[in-house]
């Protein structure tokens, strides 16, 4: 954590350097034009001070005036366009899904951050990450709008109720950094803060594994069983009511309305909550909404399960794709224990 006086924040992610570079360019442009204006004003005040006898007669001709107006409109326009493209490129890159990221799930609520790692380990108001690996957060709010902000990563994303937003970054420097809620969310908004702990990859793996809880995917599998999803999904393709779940995650799927969608976390969540919204082409609209039956934590578990079987090709995702579980007795515990 930072203690001493500083003017520039620490930079601890790959994206941070790109944004700092833009910041320096913007600072240079701003300083240049501010000084230009202030310098010009100062020079004119001194030179044309009312007590000074200086030639003032020759005024600028109409043609030269027009030329001046054109010059001081187009030069800034050029600079603005350059900055627009530069900022846009970095912004678009920041919104490209990362390759093979570590997935972390975040629930924001008044006034805490609840984090669930795929290993099953959870934490509150802190976020452990490995350095040197892209990490993607899939986030949702249980109440109002929050915003997940890590200044050292120069990264921020609003966290919305009943909608997934995602944020990804690649931490470069192990260390401890601030985590803030940036969107005003009520009484203790300023206390909805935490700590991001960036660790060496091995250290992170050890940290994540140090839990007695089951991995998210395994809990998700249990939920899928309990909710009866497989009665319609997951049978042999072509003879079933709903699309098969294995190999679904990450695939581009055709929709009933003629467009396509990528079956990522936001899409999958929407399809469970509101099955008619983006219905797959070729399937009947028979699925009811599961909105009231699934807590946000549980939704993450189901999606973790779907992710774990994204490369499965068989007719039904079997227990071999996830760690063995002891059937029966642990069912109720896992479904209710974490969800709260």
């Amino acid at each position, binding site marked *: 954590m930072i203690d001493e006086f500083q003017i520039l924040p620490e930079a601890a992610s790959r994206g941070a350097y790109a944004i700092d570079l833009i910041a320096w360019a913007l600072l240079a442009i701003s300083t240049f034009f501010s000084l230009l204006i202030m310098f010009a004003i100062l020079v004119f005040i001194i030179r044309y001070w009312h007590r000074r006898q200086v030639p003032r007669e020759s005024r600028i001709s109409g043609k030269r005036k027009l030329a001046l107006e054109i010059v001081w409109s187009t030069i800034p326009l050029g600079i603005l366009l350059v900055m627009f493209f530069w900022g846009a490129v970095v912004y678009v890159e920041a919104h490209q899904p990362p390759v093979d990221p570590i997935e972390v799930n975040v629930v924001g609520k008044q006034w805490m951050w609840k984090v669930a790692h795929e290993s099953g380990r959870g934490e509150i108001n802190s976020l452990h990450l490995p350095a040197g690996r892209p990490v993607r957060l899939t986030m949702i709010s249980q109440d109002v709008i929050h915003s997940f902000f890590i200044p050292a990563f120069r990264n921020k994303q609003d966290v*919305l109720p009943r909608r997934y937003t995602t944020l990804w970054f690649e931490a470069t420097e192990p260390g401890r950094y601030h985590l803030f809620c940036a969107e005003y969310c009520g009484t203790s908004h300023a206390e909805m803060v935490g700590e991001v702990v960036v660790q060496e990859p091995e250290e992170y793996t050890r940290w994540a594994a140090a839990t007695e809880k089951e991995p998210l995917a395994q809990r998700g599998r249990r939920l899928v069983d309990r909710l009866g999803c497989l009665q319609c999904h997951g049978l042999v393709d072509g003879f079933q009511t709903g699309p098969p779940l294995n190999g679904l995650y990450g695939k581009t799927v055709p929709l009933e309305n003629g467009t396509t969608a990528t079956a990522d976390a936001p899409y999958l969540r929407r399809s469970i909550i509101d099955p008619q919204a983006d219905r797959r082409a070729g399937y009947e609209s028979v699925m009811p909404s599961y909105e009231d039956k699934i807590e946000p934590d549980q939704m993450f578990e189901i999606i973790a399960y779907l992710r774990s079987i994204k490369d499965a090709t068989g007719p039904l995702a079997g227990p071999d794709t996830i760690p063995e579980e002891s059937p029966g007795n642990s069912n109720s515990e896992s479904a209710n224990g974490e969800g709260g």
Partner: protein
Amino acid sequence: MKSGMMEHALNNDTNYLNDGTTLRSWLLTTDHKRIGILYMLSITFFFFIGGAAAVLFRLELMTPRGDMLSPDAYNKLFSLHGIVMVWFFLIPAVPNVLGNFLIPLMIGARDLAFPRLNLASWYIFMAGGLFTLLVIIIGGVDTGWTFYTPYSSTYANTYVILAATGIFINGFSSIATGLNFIVTIHLLRAPGMIWFRLPLFVWTMYATSLIMVLATPVLAVALALIAVERIFHVGIFDPAIGGDPLLFQHLFWFYSHPAVYIMILPGMGVVSEIVPCFARKPLFGYTFVAMSSLAIASLGFLVWGHHMFVSGQSVYAGLIFSLLSMLVAIPSAIKVFNWTATLYKGTIFLKTPMLYALGFIGLFTIGGLTGICLATLAFDIHVHDTYFIIAHFHYVMVGGMVMAYLGGIHFWWPKMTGKMYNEWLGRINALIVFLGFNLAFFPQFILGYLGNPRRYHVYPDEFQVFHVMSSLGASILGVGYVLPLFYLIWSYKFGRSSGQNPWHARGVEWEAASPPIKHNFYEVPVVDYPAYDYPPAGPDFTMSEGELEPTSPEQPQRRITSSHGT
């Protein structure tokens, strides 16, 4: 001509101020000048209410812990500060005080087109303002001035609906004023006052009025929908009952971004009047400055999405809004360059209004350039919702608009009261405001880049030094805001007479007596000269206040043609 001057001098004992001195004569007046004064008193009152809230939370922010205010008290204070300052000071400041007072004088009219609507707008404004104050007294509101849903519509336990009602009521006052100005500028211009002879102040008022009339209803709709959701639980913004939380942000910013230009355009108008007068030179690039106001007003409607770059709106929307936001910088830059160029080969006097105007140009430039920073998508991701934003919009709103408002008050004070304030106090105060402002808000740029989010009453220790600087600057700024209250009132009571036109300014408003008579002009002025027809100031030209006539022999006298029968 000489007799015209004599006539003014002879009739100087009756003017709009002493033509009726009862409370009734003020509260039932339809004189645009008196209504302007009523507005001035009212917004000064609201300004100090909003300022008091700022004093309290800046005190709290001196330390990183919450040792003076509870979180809820802090949240209510910044909400109060935002709501009061935006709707009950910044938006009405220049339009309703200076605009009301000056538009008819500047275009050579006897009054606004709808004098009774004008008075009604003040009553509506006061109703909205006092209602909002009442809400604060009974418990306040903690949603921030932005009322983001679903916090405001479902979760906040404070008086959201009532506060929204206060703002809703106030909106009608804005619309009435805007409408009145548009009609007046179209229909009541004096003979010869063609559009391109209008002072730029009138042009900016026109652009501002268009925004007021077109954007304010959208705010009313957004606030009404919050009330509908809170009272009837109709799912509009809260996704828990089928609404969309981002819809509110779209509606809110569709009003509130143009509203930002309601707050800054009039300031630009004031500066466009002051700079030529104290440079003794026509404004450089009149047409460009006039058209840039309309460009800002129209582009302003197309950039609201830049408040939502990290809200989860689509990347493509982000790209378009970023590009359009960049474009707003062009007309703004045109203005700044033209004001600066006006100084070239001028004859420059650094009187109090000029100091404020130059302060405006400097601070607005910084505010505008940091606006470009924020329009740059990738940069905004980091500084969005941090103190960087706070610093940026205070540079525009306070460094820009409040400086311009004070500059305008000091410039037209002789016109409004016929009295002159102490010039040195005025100059020193302009300096105090400038320095205090920079100390208060420049550190907040750094705070923002360091990552201190806005609306935090507690913060990590390493940010403290910047908060302390900011609070110190704010207290200096506070002095700069209180001082004019005293020396201006003192000058009104005891100050020496300013004469009709102490600055030897060339606008039509200076043809009227200072203070003007009830119906402004003895004879309807006929305008056969362009705006800002400042002749070159000869070597003998001086600007010592309190003289009735220009000292320079080359200074041509303005023709006041009598057009009898009008």
